[in-house]
């Protein structure tokens, strides 16, 4: 970029309404060279082993190339060597922040193929757990995104809530991260005594504390200065890239599997989908934060609906899905999770394809970072909300 007689219009990194056309004047005697900066695979901003190579001109990002695969564990291959019940233990590990929602997809896929009747109570329990898991996941990202912008405090408050919710889920599932609570035909075991009461209490407390997050983070002037107008994503690009979840909702598209293709009992209750307008980092965070409130609303509705009855159905000794393929999409905390399960009639799947939300969402990063400043690149990286295991599988 030795040509300094250009007028640069610096777009995505500045707040809307601000006039940001810098006019760089000079005789071209001060040539600059691009510098490539490799962020990651071990870097505080990538929370995991994710690498992104930035071409920098000063602090301006000229190009970004994500490098993934550092955590590839070959789940799709491993799944071909495990039977349908064992896959749940694999799937709750690719996105380790939303283990329960991941298992759900497998269970639904196998049940649909086997035409298993799932008891009502099991379905409501699954929804309850899935929503708590969603809140767990979002709390984590609220903390970590604020941390990426330099605010250390929200992380600690987010973990206070997470701890309560994890205790709650642990009391029913026995796990804090990898729940393995689903099985084809229902859930492993019924809820412990007093679970719903405790759940209602935590829901109430979390709802009260929700305003703190809005004040502490969303209402913070510097936070707004760092995120408003940063990395806007147009709707058509988002759809063409297959972006889902909060990142898609931030662009104003209310595509949410819970609403558009209800699974479990989501059709029986009201599901609110918070929407953004500009698709920028602020909107993405806004949507993420308000999804917590929406999930709490769903949880309260589930408490009113929870029926009595059995929680699982008897499985044959050997679970063998009939020949054929099924594609199950569930709304994971980070976006839509799709499982393509193809069976040849054997004991193990013939092909088990995981369409993970993070993989698709991270594809947007080169587009979003183009022309951003280095601090904005970090702001964008955090605002796309990904889990490295979910990218690499």
């Amino acid at each position, binding site marked *: 970029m030795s040509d300094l007689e250009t007028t640069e219009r610096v777009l995505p990194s500045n707040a809307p309404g601000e006039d940001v056309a810098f006019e760089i004047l000079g005789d071209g005697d001060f040539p600059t060279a691009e510098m490539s900066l490799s962020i990651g695979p071990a870097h505080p901003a990538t929370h995991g082993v994710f690498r992104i190579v930035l071409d920098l001109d000063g602090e301006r990002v000229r190009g970004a190339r994500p490098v993934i695969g550092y955590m590839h564990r070959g789940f799709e291959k491993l799944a071909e060597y495990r039977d349908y019940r064992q896959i749940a233990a694999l799937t709750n590990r690719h996105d380790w922040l939303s283990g329960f929602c991941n298992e759900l997809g497998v269970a639904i896929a196998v049940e649909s193929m086997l035409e298993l009747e799932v008891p009502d109570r099991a379905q409501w329990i699954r929804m309850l757990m899935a929503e708590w898991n969603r809140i767990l996941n979002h709390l984590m990202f609220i903390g970590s995104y604020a941390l990426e912008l330099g605010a250390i405090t929200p992380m600690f408050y987010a973990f206070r809530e997470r701890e309560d919710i994890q205790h709650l889920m642990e009391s029913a599932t026995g796990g804090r991260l990898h729940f393995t609570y689903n099985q084809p035909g229902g859930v492993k075991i019924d809820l412990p005594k007093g679970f719903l009461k405790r759940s209602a209490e935590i829901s109430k407390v979390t709802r009260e504390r929700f305003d703190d997050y809005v004040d502490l983070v969303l209402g913070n002037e510097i936070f707004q200065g760092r995120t408003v107008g940063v990395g806007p994503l147009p709707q058509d690009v988002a759809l063409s890239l297959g972006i889902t979840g909060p990142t898609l909702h931030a662009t104003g598209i209310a595509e949410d599997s819970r609403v558009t293709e209800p699974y479990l009992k989501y059709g029986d209750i009201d599901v609110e989908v918070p929407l953004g307008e500009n698709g920028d980092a602020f909107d993405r965070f806004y949507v993420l934060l308000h999804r917590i409130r929406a999930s709490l609303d769903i949880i309260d509705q589930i408490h009113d609906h929870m029926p009595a009855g059995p929680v699982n159905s008897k499985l044959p000794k050997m679970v063998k899905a009939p020949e054929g*393929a099924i*594609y199950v999409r569930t709304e994971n905390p980070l976006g839509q999770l799709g499982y393509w399960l193809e069976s040849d009639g054997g004991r193990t799947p013939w092909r088990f394809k995981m369409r993970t939300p993070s993989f698709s969402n991270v594809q947007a990063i080169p587009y979003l970072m183009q022309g951003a400043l280095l601090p904005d690149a970090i702001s964008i990286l955090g605002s796309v909300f990904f889990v490295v295991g979910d990218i690499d599988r």
Partner: protein
Amino acid sequence: MSDVLARRDRALSPEETEELLRDRLGDGLQRTVLEYGVFTVWVEQDAWVQAATLCRDEPLLAYDMFDNLFGIDAREEGFDVVAVLYSTSTGNRIALRTRCAGGRDEPTCPSITDIYRGADWMERETWDMFGVDFPGHPQIGPRILTVENFEGWPLRKDFHLASRAAKPWPGVKEPAELDEDGNVIERVPHIGDAPGPYDLDKAMAEQAQAMNPRPELDGPEDDDDADDEPAEVEAGPDDDPTVSGAEKAEARRKAQAEARAKKAAERAGGDGDEGAAQLDQDVYDQLIAEGKSERIARSKAKAAYIKAQRAKEGDA
């Protein structure tokens, strides 16, 4: 575009979609399958790009959201590529499926990255996992998920899962491995079982075996698990990988299961001479008759025997 499901009531049914696609693609459309709510359209390789373009641009279809793209091993016929598309306005989903040209040796499939941006990484992943080349893709390499110098195409069925080939399942039982009567086949792991795929692991395993000789003798016929399974791996790639696919794997598993059942029986018999004295035979027989597995029966019988012995000693 943002009106999600605004056109739900005017969404085309699978039959209408098929009609429309057949009208536009002609012979390019092979057949359609509707199973478990998934509408799959098989198209000819040549019509792949046209079909994807049609799905995006045809206002009646309006599949604006790119969902997924991946490969599937199609046994001797090569590989399939599936692209899943979704329409945010009608709520319909379609799976386009094509069989790659070039068989198993050089599978290729035209790229649809120009139509859907999201296909970029998905196609890279498919190339990485199956070796399916996508002419027209801006940059298919370097390998996206595996390491740069990785050899082989991991999700092909003839690519053996090294750990599963080199060592037996680390748990007590294989996934849902049952004999003909529906009983779970069990194995008792031994020290020295389960060497990893590396030479060092094998050397350590041998050393461990030398230091902890097994109770049963190593007769020439009496191959143990750890030895015969790697031998199968060696044999694996030599076989024609295309023919058998699942049947072969099935047959191999069956053979292994039989061998194990036989050995377990032998082991039980072998132990019988010296070990029978330590079992409460009545309890054992009773448990076996109840349909309990042999291992449980043995351990319970042993416990009963020891209890009886203690009681005897106590009396004395």
